């Protein structure tokens, strides 16, 4: 049975992070870069399907959006997607103001808001109380900030954001199901794979000759 939360006057479904991660990956058709924050956010991206343009963080909580902005600046013709949990984003809210002020538009920010620090024992975050991530983002100046109301709405909003030419933040209320995998924890391999996926490094360095 689908649970619904009403935010303001807007009813939104409580969705599943792994399901949404799978839906996201299926929508990526132009080698879009995806930068996934620590913990369950990148575990579910890993489980949703490995691709060379995925970057998995093993620390530096809260830096998925700053790293995504850096990639978007370096590669303005590529669309970049940051995936971050509510707890991680709350740790680094200032980045929303920095991104709002920057001219880059090739950036989509997705927030999995399960209202808890799930990986540390599901202690409540501020979004379990009165804090509204979409309101925060709008207040920082990211005009295209919205709640995904259902999995289908999520797909429609992601499609629009990737095609739209305007930086967008899409927040999703998610459940507390555990992640469906664990990222392979080798940071150098993760980084090298990502740089090859972005065309910065050649995949043939050790095979050409």
């Amino acid at each position: 049975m689908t649970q619904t939360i009403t935010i303001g006057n807007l009813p939104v479904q409580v969705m599943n992070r792994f399901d949404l991660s799978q839906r996201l990956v299926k929508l990526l058709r132009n080698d879009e870069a995806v930068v996934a924050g620590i913990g369950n956010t990148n575990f579910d991206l890993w489980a949703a399907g490995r691709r060379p343009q995925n970057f998995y963080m093993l620390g530096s909580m809260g830096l998925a959006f700053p790293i995504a902005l850096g990639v978007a600046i370096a590669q303005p013709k590529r669309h970049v997607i940051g995936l971050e949990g509510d707890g991680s984003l709350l740790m680094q809210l200032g980045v929303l103001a920095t991104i709002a002020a920057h001219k880059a538009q090739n950036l989509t920010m997705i927030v999995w808001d399960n209202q808890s620090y799930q990986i540390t024992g599901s202690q409540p975050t501020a979004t379990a109380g009165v804090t509204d991530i979409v309101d925060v983002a709008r207040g920082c100046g990211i005009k295209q900030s919205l709640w995904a109301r259902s999995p289908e709405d999520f797909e429609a909003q992601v499609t629009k954001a990737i095609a739209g030419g305007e930086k967008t933040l899409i927040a999703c209320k998610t459940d507390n199901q555990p992640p469906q995998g664990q990222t392979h924890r080798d940071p150098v391999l993760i980084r090298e794979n990502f740089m090859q996926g972005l065309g910065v490094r050649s995949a043939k360095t050790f095979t050409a000759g």
Partner: protein
Amino acid sequence: MAYPAHGLMRRARLHCPPFEGTKSVPTGAAGSTPGALQERRPMAETAPLSWFDIAIAALKRNEVKLITYVPDRVLTPLIAGLAADPYFEVIGTTREEEAVGIVAGAWMGGLRGAVLMQTSGFATLPNVIASLLVPYQIPAVLIVSERGTLGEFNIGQALVCRTMRPVLDSLATEHHTVTRLDEFDFILDRSIKQAVMTQSPATLILSPLLTGGKVL
């Protein structure tokens, strides 16, 4: 001009590279050409460059195009000089970790960057250095204006300054303290090249002896 750095600027026999550089740095991750420094002309004694002009030239010569920063009084002329030069993209951030994250992402996307901050800002960075820059082998250049010594008036700055070098040593990352104008180009130029070639972060601490520091 009450401070040693300014006196040094007037008096020193400078052997800094010219502002625009006589030897361009090749593109690509490999960076340096051996012997490039030896080929530079000595500067005329009558036209000493400021520390911030030297920094701008060395960053440009090494294709460090993206600059992120949290403001600092001493760094003001460097930030202004970079922002006025269309070669650079300069981004003010709300926090030093964020500034490091942006530069890390940009480097993975093929664009070199450096982060400007003051001592107290560096003190917020051990986690991101230890969990992002070092394990992922990302060559961010961190340029720190040193507060907390040689005339500091704020005890908070004085104490936090003591944590900086032990943190850098414990993470086994390259760092240098720059005190002399005539050494600044060499240290910055070589540190950027080493960072890129060894895929390691490098930190340059700009002493009040170089910059004049901040006093009441």
